[in-house]
């Protein structure tokens, strides 16, 4: 349970970062804003509370590793890394521009703080498992966190990695599913049914926690539980809302990816400032 001040700090930070994501989406011509907002509290909880990292030393050997397997959420990830000082956030005005280090999907060799280049779905869980096994092999204490999308779970490779993580009892790996219930072409349950998603991961050898993915207390409790787990890797199914925080984007698959004109930007910012 967070104390009230800490909770407030995280909520204020999340709101401030949402505004920055809107600004980048406006200047860059278009971004995966819907998914960036559904994953947002998970990333904020990790980066501003849970992860053992040092923005001054992005290649610090003993840092925790983070993999945004849903690489299209890169706009949200980049805004956080800039805010933390991994790079000058002013660089974000180049997002999506020709020759920019920042594209929709972040490149680890171009963006300080990014541990793995992602974008192609279905890679992150296996990459994370490799990082976790590597840490265990070399006696390192760092932890690996992966954030996947729910639509991504239609990829067969997710289940190859899920099976292997259960098999190898990779307890130094914690994964989240950003369960916003939409993929690009529509609702996951009518497009390609995922449920019962918790039972599936359990059957693959994971301990599954289901939480509200916008509630900092629940996210951080889940992380604490995962870190204490000694038998199984932990999968956190985080129920989220696509486009969360902007009233006209919420639960709208049309906002999976979109651009903003000045009026829409202002309306989005107003909606974020209004939220608690």
């Amino acid at each position, binding site marked *: 349970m967070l104390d009230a001040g800490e909770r407030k700090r995280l909520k204020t930070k999340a709101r401030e970062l949402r505004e920055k994501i809107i600004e980048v989406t406006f200047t860059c011509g278009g971004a995966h804003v819907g998914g960036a907002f559904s994953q947002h509290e998970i990333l904020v909880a990790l980066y501003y509370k849970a992860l053992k990292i040092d923005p001054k030393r992005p290649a610090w050997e003993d840092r925790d590793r983070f993999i945004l397997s849903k690489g299209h959420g890169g706009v949200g990830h980049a805004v956080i890394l800039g805010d933390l000082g991994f790079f000058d956030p002013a660089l974000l005005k180049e997002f999506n521009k020709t020759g920019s280090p920042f594209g929709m999907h972040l490149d680890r060799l171009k963006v300080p703080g990014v541990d793995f280049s992602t974008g192609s779905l279905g890679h992150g869980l296996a990459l994370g498992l490799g*990082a976790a096994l590597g840490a265990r092999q*070399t006696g390192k204490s760092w932890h690996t966190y992966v954030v996947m999308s729910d639509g991504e779970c239609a990829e067969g490779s997710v289940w190859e990695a899920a099976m*292997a993580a259960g098999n190898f009892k990779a307890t130094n790996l914690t994964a989240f599913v950003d369960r916003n219930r939409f993929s690009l072409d529509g609702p996951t349950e009518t497009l390609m049914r995922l449920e019962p998603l918790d039972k599936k991961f359990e059957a693959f050898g994971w301990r599954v926690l289901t939480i509200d993915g916008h509630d900092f207390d629940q996210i951080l409790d889940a992380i604490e539980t995962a870190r204490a787990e000694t038998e199984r890797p932990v999968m956190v199914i985080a129920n989220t809302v696509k486009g969360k925080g902007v009233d006209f984007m919420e639960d709208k698959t049309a906002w999976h990816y979109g651009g903003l004109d000045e009026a829409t930007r202002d309306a989005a910012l107003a909606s974020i400032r209004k939220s608690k």
Partner: protein
Amino acid sequence: MAKAQGLTWTIDDADHMTQAEIYGETLTQIGLKDKRVVALTADLARSTKIGKFEEKIPERFYNVGIAEANMIAIAAGMTEAGLIPVVSTFAAFASMRAAEFVRTDLCYQKRNVKIIATHSGTSFGQAGTTHHCTEDIAIMRSFAGMTVIAPADAYETARAVAASIEYPGPVYIRIGRGFEPPMHKSLDFDFEIGKAIKLRDGRDLTIIATGVTVLQAMEAAERASQNGVSVRVLDMHTIKPLDEDAVREALLDTRRIITVEDHTVIGGLGDAVADVIARSGKGCAFKKLGYQDCFSMVGYYEDLQHNYGIDADGILDAIGVVLKAEFEQDEDWEDEI
């Protein structure tokens, strides 16, 4: 079907089971000295001989089950801990089933992972097309940052595996099933990634071969010499980065080139060499031996090599054709290229 002439071995002859076993042994020796080396396979520890590593160093061996894409991504992740993962599976699965993982997780991210792809070409003869792999050189050399090596025999495989551990970035080593006869007599020869080995010098024609076809090229060259034809043989064990100097030198010196590979003629060694020739601006009689845009039939490996013209008989026939081929020579042929 006609039996290949001049060959004394078949894949039923276990006496020649060397290539895969020697790489397994080499890797184990390296692993015993270098704790950064970890070995992975996808349920093919015994078939690929990486199981030798498991016998000696079980704590650094991972069998991920039949999941090649997963294996590649796990290996990529392991490099975060400073490890050097060596993965081994059949070439067909390493290069095609897991292709996007090799490209996106290893090459794009510059991950220090080595792939030892066994059963390449048609070396798994009777297993048929699903287990043949005549496309991997083309696929792998198209990935930016990938190094592609096809050793001629067990000794060269041992040298290539050892060299790859010290070579930065992803490396794809393509070997056969392990039944191939030796090309070298020992481990004592110069081996450098990216540098062709001139096994035999000649004036009239150059054969540029890779992998198991190098030995066949040497036999063909020997037989041609008995008819007074002087043939140079280049063992082009590294297809990428290609030893372009060796190709240009062959072009300048012999003006006639044949490439041989246990691979499709589309996108492989032949095309890599053709690219160098085309850029040189020099005329040249040229022929690519390999699979001519077809799926290979089922059969004994040596029969398949014979049928598709990549054994000594086929190469000898090609020498006859290329020696007679006409080509336009420019006036300043001797100029540097």
